[in-house]
Structure formats: structure tokens, C-alpha cells
């Protein structure tokens, strides 16, 4: 479907609006602020000292799977919904707005990679994801490179199978995943494999992270045998590159949702909190930064739907649009987060306030798959040309 003229409305139709409104209602009802706090921030010591895994609601996750959200990005041919990226974007915004602790975003990102692989082996795993299996990408090396061709994993052929050795880093929500989508190097070329989390030789070690709404892990593979059927792509880097715009857009959407929550929450506080006999929002030193944050958030949101629409149209500018969206969303997130704490004053600095929960989720997502400056470096190659050209 290579559309020559992009739809004026981003292709955001009734189905997408229904999905977004349903998601908003569902999360409003099932994850109100006190419930989120009870899940993730009830006990600071657990979060920071004892190393317990961040809390999440498995029952809620089962409901989410029943709602079909994990199947949204799975093509119809593989038993999924084959939904548009603009719809997934709207859903991811709601997820970010509610700071939902779940493997949904990680599963969507892995789904995009499997989808881009276009092999029967990938199709089989996509079907399982549509049925509610959670997945995580294991594609990043120890240095945290976001280049899809960088990895610290090797794949050695043995009979018809592969044997994986090495480690992958910065896995998102790996402890909630049923399957890992792993990038490895075989004779210099990249392959992509699907490995069940409980396969023999797989060990997950939890990272100690500041974000309370997810877990992150390092995974080690010690001679893990992967059957031929689970090698989902013989050109892993190409599959990841194909998936990259959708991955960036999903994380950027989560960021925009978080930023919008921070904006509305800080605005409400600025209306209620009084100093010098006036609400804080009367003062331009408070009002103007909130307006500036709104302008940045809106820029990011508009770029986001443009990028999602480009992905739906399989347009060549999808990568440029997605990098612009991630850059704008990361920078808007950084500025909004900064002001959300500062304008709340003392209370915004406490554990007791919800502000830090969103601050940390945003900060994590700002860095994930490359921050603003990182995206702009790649964009400069495209817009200006390589250095020295």
C-alpha cells in the first residue's frame, strides 16, 4: 500500500478513535493514580535497596491481552488485527499517560521486528504474540549502541541449529517476557532468533534502574540451542532497520502521553496552590514555561502522527519522520519533566508526590533507542549529507 498522497487526517479514523477512547477509559478505571502508586512506589526501599522487581498487575495484563492490544501490530495473516500505526500510536500515548507498568511497549517493539522479518518462522511467533505472549528485544550491546548491526552475541551453526553465546543488554521488561527476540552474529552476518525465556542456558540478571514502571535486564546466553524454526531472520540487521521507525514512534508516543500527564497535572497544581494570595499560575514565570512545554509537546505529537502515517503508507520518509518525532518527543519530555518538578516546588521533590514516577519513566524513554541529539545526528546525514561530503 504505497499511497501517493498521504491522508490529510493521518488516516486516523473511527476505528483508531474507538481504540484510543477505550484505552483511555480502561486505564482510567483500572489504573487510577493511587493504584499506580500502590503498585510501583509504595515502598522506596524495595525500589532502591532490596532490588525487588518493580511491581505490575498481572491481572490487568491478562485483561489487556484479552482486549487484543498485543495483536494490534500482528498482521491479519498471522492471526492478529493488523491495525494501523496511527492507532497503535494513540494507544501508546494512553499507556504513557497512565505510566502503565506492563510488557506492552516491549512486546510491540519485538512485534515490529518479527513483522519486518517476513518469514514463516517469524509468523509463528507473531501468532503467539497475538494470543497474548509477551516479548522483549535482546539486541543491544554492552556499550548501549542503538545501531541495529552492533551486538555482542555470536551464533554458531551446529547441525541444522544455531548455538547462541554471549550477552545482550538493556532488555526492556524482560522479566515479563515469554520470548526474547535476539540479535546475533553468524559468520559476520546478523541473524534474528526467537528464544523462550526459560530455554536451557538463558539467564536474566536484573538491572537496578531509576524508572519504577518497568524492569530492565541483562541476559546471558550460555550455549543456548536455537532450532532452525526459531531463526526468524537471516538478515537481522535489515529486519531491525525495517522495524526501527515503528519502534521509535511507539516510544515517542509513550513519551508524549507522559508529557501530557505532566502538563495537565502541573497546570492543575498551578491553579490550586496559592502563594502571595494568588494561584501560582497567575505568575508569568509559571504560566509561560507551561505554555512553552505545551508548544513542544504539540510539535512532538504532530510529528508523531505524521511519522505513524508514513509508516502506514510505507513511505520512504518514514525513518526521517520517526527520528524527528523521537527527537521532538525526547526534548519535549526533558523540558516538561524539568518544569513539572520545579513548578511543584518542595512537594515535587518528594517521594510522596506522583511527579517523580512520571519524571523517571520519561527520562528512561528519552534515552531509549537514542535521545534527541542522537536522532539529529542521524538526520543530519540524511538532510545535509555525510561529514566531508
Amino acid at each position, binding site marked *: 500500500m504505497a499511497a501517493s498522497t498521504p491522508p490529510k487526517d493521518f488516516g*486516523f479514523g473511527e476505528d483508531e478513535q474507538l481504540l484510543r477512547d477505550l484505552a483511555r477509559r480502561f486505564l482510567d478505571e483500572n489504573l487510577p493514580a493511587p493504584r499506580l502508586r500502590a503498585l510501583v512506589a509504595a515502598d522506596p526501599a524495595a525500589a532502591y535497596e532490596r532490588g525487588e522487581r518493580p511491581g505490575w498487575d498481572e491481572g490487568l495484563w491478562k485483561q489487556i491481552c484479552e482486549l487484543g492490544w498485543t495483536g494490534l501490530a500482528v498482521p491479519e495473516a498471522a492471526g492478529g488485527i493488523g491495525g494501523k500505526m496511527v492507532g497503535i500510536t494513540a494507544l501508546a500515548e494512553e499507556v504513557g499517560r497512565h505510566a502503565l507498568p506492563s510488557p506492552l511497549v516491549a512486546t510491540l517493539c519485538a512485534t515490529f521486528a518479527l513483522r519486518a522479518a517476513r518469514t514463516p518462522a517469524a509468523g509463528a511467533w507473531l501468532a503467539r504474540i497475538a494470543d497474548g505472549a509477551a516479548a522483549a528485544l535482546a539486541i543491544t550491546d554492552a556499550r548501549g549502541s542503538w545501531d541495529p548491526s552492533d551486538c555482542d552475541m555470536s551464533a554458531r551453526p551446529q547441525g541444522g541449529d544455531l548455538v547462541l553465546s554471549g550477552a545482550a543488554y538493556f532488555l526492556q521488561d524482560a522479566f515479563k517476557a515469554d520470548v526474547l527476540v535476539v540479535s546475533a552474529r553468524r559468520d559476520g552476518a546478523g541473524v534474528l532468533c526467537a528464544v523462550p525465556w526459560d530455554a536451557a542456558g538463558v539467564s536474566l540478571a536484573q538491572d537496578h534502574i531509576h524508572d519504577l514502571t518497568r524492569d530492565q535486564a541483562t541476559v546471558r546466553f550460555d550455549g543456548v540451542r536455537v532450532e532452525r524454526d526459531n531463526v526468524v531472520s537471516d538478515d537481522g540487521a535489515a529486519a531491525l532497520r525495517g522495524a526501527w521507525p515503528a519502534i521509535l514512534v511507539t516510544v515517542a508516543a509513550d513519551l508524549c502521553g507522559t508529557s501530557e500527564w505532566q502538563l495537565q497535572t502541573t497546570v492543575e497544581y498551578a491553579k490550586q496552590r496559592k502563594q502571595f494570595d494568588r494561584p501560582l499560575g497567575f505568575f508569568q514565570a509559571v*504560566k509561560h514555561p507551561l505554555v512553552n512545554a505545551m508548544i513542544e509537546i504539540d*510539535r512532538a*505529537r*504532530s510529528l508523531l502522527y505524521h511519522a505513524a502515517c508514513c509508516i502506514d503508507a510505507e513511505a520512504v520518509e518514514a525513518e526521517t519522520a520517526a527520528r*524527528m518525532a523521537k527527537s521532538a518527543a525526547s526534548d519535549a519530555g526533558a523540558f516538561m519533566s524539568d518544569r513539572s518538578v520545579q513548578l511543584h516546588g518542595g512537594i515535587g521533590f518528594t517521594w510522596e508526590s506522583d511527579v517523580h514516577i512520571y519524571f523517571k519513566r520519561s527520562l528512561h524513554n528519552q534515552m531509549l533507542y537514542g535521545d534527541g541529539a542522537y536522532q539529529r545526528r542521524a538526520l*543530519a546525514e540524511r538532510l545535509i549529507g555525510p561529514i566531508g561530503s
Partner: protein
Amino acid sequence: MPPPPPERLPVLPIEVSTESLRDYLRDWQRRCYEAGLIGADLPTEYGGGGHQGFQRIANREMSRAGTPFMLNVVGLHMAIPTILVHGSEEQKRRFVPKALSCEEIWCQGFSEPGAGSDLANQQTSAVRNGDVWVVNGHKLWTSLGHFAQWMILITRTSKEHKYDGLTYFLCPIEGHPGVTVKPLIKMTGEQGFNEVLFEDARIPDSLRLDEVGKGWTVAMTTLTYERGAAEGAGGGGGEKTSPIERLIALARASFRNGVRASDDPHTRDAIVQRAIVHEGMQQNVRRMRVPALCDHPMRLPLQMKVTGSEYAQHNARLGVEIAGARSTLYKKDPAAPDAGRWPLEYLDSYGHTIAAGTNEIQRNILGERVLGLPKSK
């Protein structure tokens, strides 16, 4: 395409300083009007084309072709929409066609020495004497005032009410007894706007727009169009190359710390940031028309004045930075990069961050009307 202009064409109406430029641009607008490219969506009884949705296409095509801008910018984007909303049938038939064809050029009489950001603090008085109003006062920053035949004018007709004491007129300017237009020189060193003095100038009551005391409401209609939140009568114009392309070309031709600026990581990042803002503005316009993706109907439209004027300012500033030492050369120096446009546009950009309500006032309006924050006053 029009015949070649008599001298370098200005990019903005505020730069139109000579009569030969005025005549050239007026002639260009008349040709566009005769070709159906202006007023395309307005009713035929007021000189329009009677179409629907033509204007946006015409604007886009003119912009793509890099045609000159429409000289009668105040007429097209402020006077016509305001007259169509608030004017009598007779006023619509009398004024709209001649504004479209540029036979009559309009200017705006809103700002005063004491009424800038606080626009409602109008001191220019209009006192009724039978069928005539007698006007006294002082208007400032009047772009195109030295070329205009008509002015959209706010006056104070009652001192008892700040907002409800204002009345709006369509005021004759050129050669009108009691009206004096004096040029002001901008910080760029160029002429382009004026001050206008009213000394017992007489305006017939038939030129009053809407009711006595409703001037603030009428002015808000004008400002909505001026600030780009609603579409005016049309008219395109611009340049073929985008500002981003011009910045990239400048970077390729400039050096920074001994390396080509287009190879300097800081410059590359700065240019890409501008490109992202550029694309963001275009996508904002697109999203504005998808209500399902807008939380508040005025949230994006009210941002346009701020984002547009600051976009231009930051681009020009970056151009100055990239040009480095050579940016010091102004427009008459033959060695000036791009004929000195970068420092000129940077200096001129403050006209736009200040005019039509300073961007600080715009931020108050956004904070209050969209975010619901308490009024700052």
C-alpha cells in the same frame, strides 16, 4: 510568472519602502486577482470566485512557484474577513472587491503609544456630531500606512467602559483632512511603518463597522485572522527554497573553526533542529484539521503566531551564526553572504515577535484560554 521586479523584491510587506516596489507588487496582486487566485472562496457578489476550497490550493501553488507576496496583506487577511463578519451589505459590496484587486490598500490602526500589549487601553477618541464622528489621536507601527488609502481603526467612544467603550471604523487615510502619516525608521535602518496622527479628522457614520461600543469584539475578529488562527481571503507568496535549504547552502559555503560549517557537528545539529521545527509547524497545521487529535479546539491555532515568528527569528539567528565573521557585512556590502539577508532578517524578525500582540501576550492568552490558568494582568 510576473515580469522581473525593479529591484530586489522584499520578503515582507514591512520592507516595501519605494513607490516602484509598491507599483510592482500592486500590479502583481491585480493580475493574480484577475486570474482567480485571490478571493477564490469568497461570494461572487463581493468580487470573489464563489468556489469552495480553491484558495488553499491556489496559495499552495503560488507558494510552490515562489511568487511575490500579496501587497494588500492587511486588506486580505484582516479588513476583508472582519468586514465580512461585521459589515453591512453595502460595506461588503463597497470595500471587498477593491481590497481583493489591490485597487485600495489597507493599513491597521490598532497600536498607540499607550496601547501596545494592553490593546484595550485605546486613547484615540471619536466623538459623535450628528452623522459624523470627529477623531483625535495617535496610532503607531502602521505598516503600509504611507501607501494605504484605508485604515481599519479602533477608537474610544466612551471613557466609562474599558472594553465596551470602543468603536471600530473603516477610515479614509490618503489625503484625508486631519490625517497625517509620518514614516518611522526601523532598527534595520529601513522605512516600512509609520505613525498616523488624527487631528479633528471627520468620518461619516456610514463607515462605522458594527455597533457603537462593540469595537473590542470586532477587533478580536481581526486579531484572530491576523494571528493566523483562521484563514483569510488568501494570497500566497514566498520563495522557492525553504529556509532550511538556504541554511544548508549557507553552511556549505561557510567556515567555522577552520572547517566547513556543514561538517561542524554543532552547526549540523542546529540546522536539523530548525528542520524539525519546520516540519512540526506543517504537521501542526495538518493535525489542527483533525478534531479527534486535538484536545482543545484553539490549542494549536493560538500557537501559530508564536511558533511562526520565533521560527523565523531562530532561523535568521542561526544564519548569522553560520556566516560568522561574514555575517557582520550588511546588505550594501558586495561581499555580504546572500546580500546581507541574514542579519537583516534577524533584525527585522523582532517586528514579528512584537507585532500583533507580543509573544509574551500570546503566551498569556494560551495559558489562560487553553490551559485555563488564572489571568495575569
